[in-house]
């Protein structure tokens, strides 16, 4: 490895190179004071450079070994781990089926669709469902909801939370009798209490929050899902420099992906749609452009198919592309079945 790749400041790098230290091995046997004299930096700076360099060479050396690379995992272990993690249910069985059981932890999932199709609904539903206790096949985690559009409705979250608890108690009646104890633990207010809401008002704040999340989550270990509703909004306004936009977006996507991996949580990004001209006609497509579409692990598109709402898996490394109907009811996202009529709100 060369000096040029060390994470040190540009002027220090320049000094090293002009003094003839171009490879790490040339630095390996030096003492700080010698380096300080030769390169013309202070003793402490020299000590720091050597520390960084020795760290770098250690990484370099281990590349030779095959299974013991730092941070690597065998595919077999990963499979095992994947099975250990429960998925976050969407409350719609058909949708869960095509998603392989629900939204996967450790992955970034993008969900997009036309206005009014139910993106925010699905977001709130997931923020509630992640809190289903482990006894009921959930994760018992907490949720972070990042609202960039101001479309989060706390009244709606309460409705969905109430319906979720109701469903749990129904299924419980069939399974066992000691429900009383559990019922006391789950109250709609508990669910709302474990939903951390951030209101983001500019793209700078969105980036800042993405940076800060790592610290926030390490203070709140139970967070199992991060929902961004929507990732698009601020990036669609006042951007003249499209290259900058692409770079900022991909930087953000990388950080979110890292969060998902490190804390084994699910990241759900909601996206808007736009018109795209292809093959002689305009078609709907998710916003933010082609390079953005590489940033997410999974991509789900919500659309109207006749009289029903459908979800379509547009991209996923592990799931086959399929579509499934769902419906938005007063209780939240549910199966779309013509035989189970919706319960009206009034």
């Amino acid at each position, binding site marked *: 490895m060369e000096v040029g790749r060390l*994470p040190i*400041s*540009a*002027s*220090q790098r320049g000094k090293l190179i002009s003094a003839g230290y171009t490879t790490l091995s040339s630095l390996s046997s030096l003492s700080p004071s010698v380096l300080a004299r030769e390169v013309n930096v202070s003793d402490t700076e020299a000590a*720091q450079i050597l520390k*960084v360099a020795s760290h770098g060479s250690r990484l370099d050396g281990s590349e030779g070994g095959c299974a013991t690379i730092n941070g690597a995992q065998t595919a077999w272990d990963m499979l095992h781990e994947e099975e250990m993690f429960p998925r976050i249910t969407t409350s719609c069985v058909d949708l869960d089926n095509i998603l392989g059981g629900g939204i996967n932890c450790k992955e970034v999932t993008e969900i997009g669709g*036309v*206005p*009014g199709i139910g993106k925010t609904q699905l977001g709130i539903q997931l923020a509630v469902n992640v809190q289903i206790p482990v006894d009921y096949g959930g994760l018992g985690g907490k949720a*972070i909801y990042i609202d960039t*559009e*101001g*479309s989060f*409705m*706390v*009244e709606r979250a*309460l409705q969905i939370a109430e319906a979720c608890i109701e469903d749990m108690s129904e299924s419980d009646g069939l399974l066992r009798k000691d429900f009383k104890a559990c019922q006391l633990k789950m109250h709609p207010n508990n669910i*709302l*209490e474990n*939903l*951390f*809401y*951030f*209101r983001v*008002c*500019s793209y*700078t*704040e969105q*980036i*800042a*929050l*993405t*940076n800060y999340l790592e*610290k926030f989550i390490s203070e709140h270990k139970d967070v199992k899902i991060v929902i961004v509703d*929507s990732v698009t*909004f601020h990036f*669609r*306004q*006042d951007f003249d420099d499209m290259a*900058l936009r692409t*770079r900022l977006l991909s930087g953000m996507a990388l950080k979110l992906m890292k969060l998902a991996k490190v804390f084994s949580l699910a990241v759900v990004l909601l996206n*808007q*749609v*736009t*018109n795209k001209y292809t093959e002689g*006609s*305009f*078609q709907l*497509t998710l916003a933010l452009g082609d390079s953005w579409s590489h940033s997410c692990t999974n991509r789900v*598109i919500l*659309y*109207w*198919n*006749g*009289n029903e709402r459908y979800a*379509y898996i547009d991209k996923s490394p592990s799931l086959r592309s399929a579509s499934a109907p769902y419906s*938005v*009811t007063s209780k939240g996202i549910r199966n779309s079945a013509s035989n189970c009529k919706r319960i009206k709100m*009034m």
Partner: protein
Amino acid sequence: MANMVISEMGLPKWIANIFAARNIITAKEALSLTEFELMEFLDVGLAEVTSAVAHISEIVCPPYQTALSLMEQRVQNEHLAGHLPTRLKGLDEALCGGIPFGVLTELVGPAGIGKTQFCLKLSLLASLPASYGGLDGRVIYIDVESKFSSRRMIEIGMKSFPEIFLKKGMAQEMGGRILVLHPTSLSEFTESLQQIKVSLLQHQVKLLVIDSMAALVSGEYEQGAPRQHALGWHVSFIKSLAEFSRIPIVVTNQVRSQSRDDACQYSFQVQRWDDTKEDRTRYDSHLVAALGVHWAHAVTIRLVLESKSGQRFIKVAKSPISPPLAFPFNITSSGMSLLSDGGFELTGPDINTIHCQGHNDIINFVGESLQ
């Protein structure tokens, strides 16, 4: 908070000075650069840059609230838990109390369907004293198409709240609370928006009406792409206006006929394109909202006003809290009134289409009855 100055963030003095020396003044500038770019610009090591970025991020990022505290706050601080009742019983129930504070509510519909009538009624409701169920505040009415009629508004007031409006001086007081602006161009509109931002809090403004949003842009651009971007700034500004002053904002939107450029399908649906094309030729009077999909994403609640075989309907086309319901209504001398409070639920494409059949008859009829 994006424009917060780095030198005031409590970073270690030496690194704050470097930021200043390299002319990276605000958080926005610093966070728009990657860590490696910052290393190059500032000429410091990775560890220092990472900790500086983390520090800036932590200060810039907004504070969190739990949903529970959010709800308690709304219930405590706000009259009617943050809703402006429309006094249309069915609609109020569907929307959990009325037009919510803090978000954008949009009215879409063909000309003459009753959008302005609805706006006039809402303005009155917001200005009514709290003892009569109003918000007891001022209203700013941005009248782009010059359709605001004080005479009609007082008439609606007289007919719907005779007990208030027949009191001496009350009509004058109610009318005096409604401020009407007439911007004639987009730039003028922009200017007045910025002024409004300041006066919203000072003058107890409880409702902002913009009638109509589409007229502003259609006057300046012919068609197509520039329209979307022209409103980009306004969309986020109006949204933040609603949010921070916690008032309801009602905007109206016109309709236009659907052109071939309006996509309504994804590429994976294309195989079925041919069937739908035939469908569409049958309904040649197909209307869509004038402002495109970008705008539609920005509004939180969309109410569609339409007429179908001679009957007018108001539909909840997009709402995070209500199922898609439709209510038949008519326009009377006291404004809009629902013919039944139990709406019927819509499915599929019906939710978003805007019908305009047998509409002209009603306009003429109502027009005569008003005079």
